[in-house]
């Protein structure tokens, strides 16, 4: 697989390099760039504002990016009218200041239902091959948005059976009349469920995080952006001793990452030895990982590796929020799993039969541990948490 990847990517890199040369040659003047979308050669290109060398997120052919759709999506994302009882929006569980997580171990829906898992960061969500913690079926943001909107187990936004109520609400707001018309100029009836989820997905594809100190150092070429401790932590993180990079590798620090140039897209899930209930390999219900979808025993406890970008902001950790600090997380990986000594979930996760082969444990000195944490903290992108274009437009227009 490795060779195949490299061959394919190598060829692609060459092609893209040629294309960039051709494209950029047209824009060599010093004037402002053209509008944010341009149509050329059978495709519309949207300017994500990405640094050089960062590939674009994949965009479905039936939902091309436009600034107008993104702006509509921003309004919808932050609008509590998207829950039936008008108490919650997407942003209620995806707070910008916490890198679009909510700081809770598990989240609470609009009617008080507890979700079984924690809210995941939406930073760079447009690059993910699968969405949510462990679902190989959810491969498009447009489809994923329907889950919190209409899901019933648990109820999140509580809209099941009430899509028309939602659309009526939105249509009654003159601000939306303008936004929908601008986003969907060719639609006879712009107020539709498809319009809503496509706009939200478009907005989500602009939740991009590439401005951390680590980015400036490792991608931007600024030797002064990291201190010595974080630099040492980087070397440890990417070492065969710690093995972190196998699941949290690549520019998005997650192996569930693909971009518009990815030729072969893989879906990846891993069991990290968090549980081994009764020594059977089981994870506590209902958080059984991919098993909950596939019913395959080998999928028990397999979850998607989340991005580690902004990880210092996204505590508590793991799918069920069962670790409060990065120190605890390092303890877990250093031990090669977690031994739950007592209680209903008792069992030695280190011995979980589905455990990833990369969890063989390691030893860190106090300095090394501080270095790894300094590295992880260098992934915090305050531009993401403060960027106005991602903020609540209803309170900060």
């Amino acid at each position: 697989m490795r060779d195949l990847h490299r061959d394919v990517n190598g060829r692609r890199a060459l092609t893209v390099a040629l294309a960039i040369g051709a494209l950029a040659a047209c824009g060599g003047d010093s004037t402002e760039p053209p509008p944010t979308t341009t149509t050329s050669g059978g495709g519309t290109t949207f300017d994500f504002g990405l640094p050089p060398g960062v590939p674009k997120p994949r965009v479905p052919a039936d939902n091309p990016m436009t600034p107008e759709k993104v702006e509509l999506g921003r309004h919808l994302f932050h609008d509590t009218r998207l829950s039936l009882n008008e108490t919650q929006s997407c942003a209620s569980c995806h707070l910008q200041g916490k890198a679009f997580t909510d700081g809770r171990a598990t989240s609470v829906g609009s009617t008080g239902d507890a979700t079984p898992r924690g809210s995941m960061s939406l930073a760079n969500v447009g690059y993910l091959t699968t969405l949510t913690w462990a679902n190989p079926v959810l491969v498009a943001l447009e489809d994923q948005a329907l889950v919190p909107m209409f899901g019933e187990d648990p109820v999140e936004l509580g809209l099941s059976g009430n899509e028309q109520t939602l659309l009526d609400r939105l249509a009654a707001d003159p601000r939306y009349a303008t936004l929908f018309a601008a986003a969907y100029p060719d639609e006879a009836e712009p107020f539709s469920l498809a319009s809503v989820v496509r706009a939200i997905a478009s907005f989500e594809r602009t939740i991009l995080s590439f401005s951390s100190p680590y980015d400036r150092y490792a991608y931007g070429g600024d030797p002064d952006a990291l201190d010595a401790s974080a630099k040492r932590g980087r070397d440890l993180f990417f070492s065969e001793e710690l093995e972190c990079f196998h699941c949290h590798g690549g520019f998005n620090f997650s192996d569930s990452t693909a971009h518009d140039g990815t030729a072969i897209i893989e879906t990846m899930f891993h069991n990290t030895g968090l549980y081994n209930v009764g020594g059977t390999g089981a994870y506590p219900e209902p958080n059984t990982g991919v098993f909950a979808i596939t019913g395959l025993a080998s999928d028990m406890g397999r979850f998607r590796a989340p991005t580690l970008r902004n990880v210092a902001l996204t505590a508590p950790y793991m799918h069920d929020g069962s670790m409060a600090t990065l120190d605890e997380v390092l303890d877990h990986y250093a031990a090669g799993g977690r031994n739950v000594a007592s209680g209903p979930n008792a069992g030695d996760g280190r011995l979980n039969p589905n455990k990833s082969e990369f969890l063989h444990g390691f030893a860190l000195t106090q300095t090394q541990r501080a270095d790894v944490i300094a590295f992880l903290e260098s992934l915090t992108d305050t531009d993401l948490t403060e960027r106005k274009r991602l903020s609540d437009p209803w309170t900060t227009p």
Partner: protein
Amino acid sequence: MNGKVLAPLLSALVLVACGGEDGTDTTASSSSTGAAGGTTAGTGGAGGSGPAASTSTGGGGSEAITLTFAAEVGGQPFACGTSFDGLGASKSKAELLDFRLYVHDVRLLDGKDEVPVTLEQDGVWQLEKLALLDFEDKKGKCANGTTEKNLTVRGTIPAGVKYDGVRFKLGVPFELNHSDASTAPSPLNLSGLFWNWQGGRKFLRIDAMAEGAMKAFNLHVGSTGCDGDPASGGVTACTSPNVATIELAGFDAAKNTIVVDYAAMVAAVDFAKPDGGGASGCMGGKTDPECAQIFDKLGIDIATGSPKVGAQTAFKVK
């Protein structure tokens, strides 16, 4: 029900309403005038004697047929806002919160011969080979539902076909099931029947609130073990289709009704006990004990998700 559904619904009602008392039920009987055992006579009628005849090819050799369904709970007609006694092993009392199911691939049987029913494409309840049967009217606790009901499957068959049985599948064909929920046409656009976590639809949805229970006992059947393709953005396959095949003998569309009985589905369930695991009730989980009890009655092998033809006890001819 959203606006896109309503408009065609109204026109469909004009077309097929042929005596529905409240104007919302699209109940109708076959125009067959044949003898017992069901021989159609080729009069070209459709949906009874109403103007829907215009949708039939008439004398070209096809014949309209309407299959009528009824939802019951232990022999009592189902209605939203009504409580039913004697449910399950615990003989519990419960109110139902929904009662909808998809059927497709409807065929009439005559011994080894079978004739597919070509469904009228009404833009509301029927799409390609698929029909949604909707027995709830949003009243009472059926809040996730729609005010409109649909109790029939309407279509055409070759004129003069003899039959004495019927077979259909409980569920949605794979391609339609995994169509884009946000853009799909009716009847695939009802969010109460979305099954987004598996990228499909709920084939059967009957939720119950038992007396004294804290949580609803949900019965949602749909395909599970599905896999997505991040490259195409679609669902590639489901290891457990969970599509039941219902085969009923002694059926004449002109005289009989196909009865689907919730009490029969949950006959083995003990509503008085705490939920045995998985979702509250059954949401299709392979290891959910309530699903095992219910799939058995629907004629689905829970281990494989394949139909066990002839094993179901939830549907009967009346």
